[in-house]
């Protein structure tokens, strides 16, 4: 399932029918940065095209779900327009991307599974934290629960199966890893992923003008903070992490 190829993907867009109100444009299979970058490029093109009847799109790892109003359009009209937008996606223009520097308090009460993750990987906890902070994560998609960000880019030394016993509740702000992925979970949720730490940054905050901090396609870098620093930042209500600009296509 996890195909991590640094080379540009050979895309063969496929149109899939999803009931009487949605089409899926599938660009490929698996989880790969270049494939996902093409998905977000297509998603932006669909938004910019303003095709009649399109209600909402959901970009994922390797496809875009396009929901439409069946009273306004149908697959015969919408399908060819979408396939047209899906041409030449692999030819990456160098688009600027946001990269958030997300502070994380790793281990201890904030990351109960860090010790276990380190033991299974044959590393010290400091080495695990260093690997997480050196990784260049990509927000492949948001899904599962509001603001839950699936991050690709977990170093291979840390790939581990999920917990046999999922937890019924994981704390809001949990930074976790599961399989070949990492995640930031802004609200308390049941989960079988390993808890590494917590971020004081609220990636989902309804009272903020932009309730969702992270968008699909964003990049993430973690920075390790102490418990004292966590408490200081958590008290800061409108906390936003530092942001850099990186250039899309750099991974190709």
């Amino acid at each position, binding site marked *: 399932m996890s195909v991590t190829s640094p080379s540009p993907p050979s895309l063969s867009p496929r149109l899939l*029918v999803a*009931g009487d109100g949605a089409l*899926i444009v599938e660009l490929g299979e698996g989880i790969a940065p270049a494939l996902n970058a093409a998905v977000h490029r297509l998603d932006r093109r669909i938004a910019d095209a303003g095709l009649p009847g399109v209600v909402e799109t959901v970009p994922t*790892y390797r496809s875009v779900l396009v929901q439409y109003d069946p009273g306004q359009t149908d697959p015969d009209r919408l399908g060819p327009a979408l396939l047209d937008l899906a041409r030449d996606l692999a030819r990456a223009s160098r688009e600027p991307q946001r990269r958030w520097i997300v502070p994380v308090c790793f281990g201890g009460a904030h990351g109960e599974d860090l010790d276990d993750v380190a033991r299974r990987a044959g590393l010290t906890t400091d080495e695990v934290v260093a690997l997480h902070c050196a990784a260049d994560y990509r927000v492949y998609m948001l899904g*599962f629960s509001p603001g839950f960000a699936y991050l690709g880019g977990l170093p291979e030394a840390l790939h581990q199966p999920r917990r046999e016993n999922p937890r019924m509740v994981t704390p809001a702000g949990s930074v976790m890893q599961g399989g070949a992925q990492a995640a930031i979970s802004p609200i308390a949720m049941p989960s079988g992923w390993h808890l590494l730490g917590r971020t004081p940054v609220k990636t989902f905050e309804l009272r903020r003008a932009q309730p969702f901090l992270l968008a699909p396609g964003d990049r993430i870098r973690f920075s390790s903070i102490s418990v004292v620093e966590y408490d200081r930042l958590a008290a800061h209500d409108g906390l936003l992490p530092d942001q850099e600009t990186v250039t899309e296509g750099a991974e190709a």
Partner: protein
Amino acid sequence: MTTHLRVVAAGPSSTVQDRGRFGYQRYGVSVAGAADPLLHAAANALVGNPADAGVVEFTMMGDTLTVEGGPVRLAVAGDVPLFVDDQPVPSWTSLRLRDGETLRIGALRDGVRGCWAVEGGMALDPVLGSVATHSRSRLGGLHGGALKAGDRIPLRLAAAADRGEATLDPSLLPPRGEVIRVVLGPQDDAFTPAGIAAFLGGEYSVSHEADRMGYRLTGPVIEHARGFNITSDGIPLGAVQVPGTGQPIVLLADRQTTGGYPKIACVIGPDVAALAQKRPGDRFRFRAVTVAEAQAIHAQHRAVMDGLPGLLRAAGGFALYDSERLLGFNLIGGAVTGWE
């Protein structure tokens, strides 16, 4: 002073719903919204509200509400016994309740969900553009969850005018089909021909794991062609996903936005509501239709939904407490033909 409805007793799962929360699925936010959009629109039409106003959708059994202030105009869409201070009153008909009067909504005689609407609507702040409740993520509604005894629901209108009441003959609405129609895909190629034949040829029943998020069904096992994991992708309304057990799960209004099981088919829009009205133990079959057929059926349903205000009749021809005539309407479902 703000007029309120005080919840004296809440049904087992009564939530504020509108047409749903659109535009945020890309951030992992479920659409939610009324499980049966026709009932939602009918309840609103009966009290003269815009079709997309928030209502309360109740499950199996309704709520008991006391008016604080008012008067308040209310209507219940659904085949359900109603009582105002223990006097029976008809459903599918608007009612004007005075300060201190209590409406008790009983158990549905048919289906799983009903809706009640109040003229002018509830004074609730939309969350991400909608008042729809998504209980799993505690978004929307009164406090992110189901109504509970003691809740006080603020209303927008302080006092409903004294005017004629409206009634709707539910037999004019399209009947809920016994067969649930689907369009195959998006991942029907993840199943063997035998698997697809089992899905379309067999009889399925609704299990006890059935809620606003999805219905887990029991019936012939659907065989996968090559495993049951796909790279997670988006989940449209009515998607029929098949996990490793080979038993399908139909995903409804409160569905998660993305998932990693292959989807053999999607239930067509109008039949999603028909399925969401089925009870545990109910048996039915799926039938495949083309997208063009599905859209024609969709257009028929939409015409009824848009035409609901025109189907209303004055309820003045009978006394408020003479419920016989209206309850009779519920017994002659199917008298009107023209619906497939």
